[in-house]
């Protein structure tokens, strides 16, 4: 965690305070993943709006319109992530008011060959900007990938 904290301070010192909207998908009741994500992103120096468990698509769309986040981070671990993730991104990309919104998804997707390129490709093709499958033993890796993604986007923007 030492390295992460160091990077975090560096990034925050760069003044890039962003707004993240963290959310579950419609059928997923798990929240520890959302709680940890919120803390990690806040420790990167950013602001987090956490929508919690079982977020219906309509609520997510309304929250995105109201909050205008820089990033939407979806997290899922209950095994329905691939189907729910597809449903959610179709709605987000179908809303003209949310054009250009950066949306990423991570977690345990629950199909065989979980972290394989097939799943990632499919979700990217459906409109996600990034996909971070997490292994049961190494959830920190997915978070690290998210951090790298945010840093690279920030660098591009500078």
């Amino acid at each position, binding site marked *: 965690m030492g390295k992460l904290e160091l990077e975090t301070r560096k990034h925050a010192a760069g003044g890039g305070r962003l707004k993240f909207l963290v959310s579950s998908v419609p059928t997923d009741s798990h929240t520890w993943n959302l709680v940890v994500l919120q803390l990690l992103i806040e420790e990167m120096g950013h602001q987090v709006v956490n929508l919690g*468990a079982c977020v219906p698509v309509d609520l997510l769309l309304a929250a995105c319109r109201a909050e205008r986040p820089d990033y939407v981070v979806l997290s899922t671990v209950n*095994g329905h992530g691939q189907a729910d993730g597809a449903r959610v991104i179709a709605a987000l990309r179908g809303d003209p008011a949310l054009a250009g919104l950066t949306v990423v998804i991570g977690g345990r997707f629950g199909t065989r060959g979980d972290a394989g390129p097939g799943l990632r490709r499919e979700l990217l093709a459906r409109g996600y900007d990034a996909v971070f499958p997490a292994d049961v033993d190494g959830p920190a890796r997915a978070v690290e990938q998210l951090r790298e993604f945010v840093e690279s986007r920030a660098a591009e923007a500078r």
Partner: protein
Amino acid sequence: MTTHGSQSQFSRFVSEQRRAGTLVLQPRMGFGDPARMRRGLLAVRSAGLPAIGTVTLDSYTRHNAHDEAAAALASGVELNGYPLVAIPLGRTARMLEGVRCAEFPVQVRHGSAQPEQIFATMLALGLDASEGGPVSYCLPYSRIPLRVATAAWARAVRVLADRRDRGMLCHLESFGGCMLGQLCPPSLLVALSVLECLFFVEHGLGSVSASYAQQTNADQDAEALWALRRLCAEELSTVDHHLVLYTYMGLYPATRAGGRVLLSDSVRLAVRTGTERLIVKTTAEAHRIPTIAENVEALRLAHECARTAPGPEPAPAGDTEVYLQARALVDAVRCLAPTLTEALPLAFERGLLDVPYCLHPDNRNDARCVIDPDGRLVWWDTGRLPLPTALGGRRRTERVGAARLLADLTHHRRRLDHTTVSAGPRHAGNERHGQRVPH
């Protein structure tokens, strides 16, 4: 079905086992396919163990999305539990035929914040035991306002209680001893479990059980179970009641050996405290929904462990901190309104009850807890809970960081998977179902 005295069939079985000094065991089993559900129940029944059967419902049914459950069934998609409402009554009746009896009660476990339809279906099938609660099945797993869940639970409990007129005594277990599965301080678990049992009694039920989930320190857990027993004796003396322990409901060890250690610890905890019933976990828990064989294996291991465990110890004399905190919480909530149906939502609104890290919009989420160097779960910040400093109440300006939280969430995994890594391979299992919401 006949009933005797003021006990439900479910709790009569538990009482008989208690008199014999036997710990009652129960799996968390649920399958979408009725044939497999029946095979599972029969396997538990025929295992020759002091066991109760479980029908755990799927997550569509939990949200009353019965059409979606039916569609999933029709399209052959495997569900993560039994879709009790979507399946025609006759089919479930056949599934249960010859399975349940006085020597093998069956409990429905569901996870619903609005269980009226589930309970109505249960009653139509003659099933008389279930579990949950207006707080414990609302805050952790749904977005439904607590007032809506409390009203729904009030109606649902009354439907169960009204069966008394037809000679059927129903039993409800509070799930209040779980709350997010981990990192909830014992005194709050004890208080919530007692408050939910009191809520059930308020709506006419005469047979309840209070729950507690194994946490991170055996001595602290024993203190909590003794405190729960004492509060139940003080508050529920007029109704039939017993205690139920859940084997650890948080992030479970990934190795078979680690899982077995945690399960065995929970068995010894139950025996030591005279807890009547234990709901077990399997070694597959960290990876996927366990098979029938894995469920039976866990029950056998638990039974063997219970037979060889040192017997019950007397509760400590005097007031423990867990008892005093739980007593203060229960009293503060009951002072808020004449009924718990009104008092429970009000208590959360005012922060007199506050579940650490719970993201539900009706939870203040000011309270925090951590694991101390002895492995005890301790308050970090008690928010607006009515706990004076002398009773362990505290406020802090610095917050719990992600690194500390992650370490605390993985406490048992780090403790047990690492020390037992040479004792056996990681459990083989696909991750098709992911980790199921505990209930």
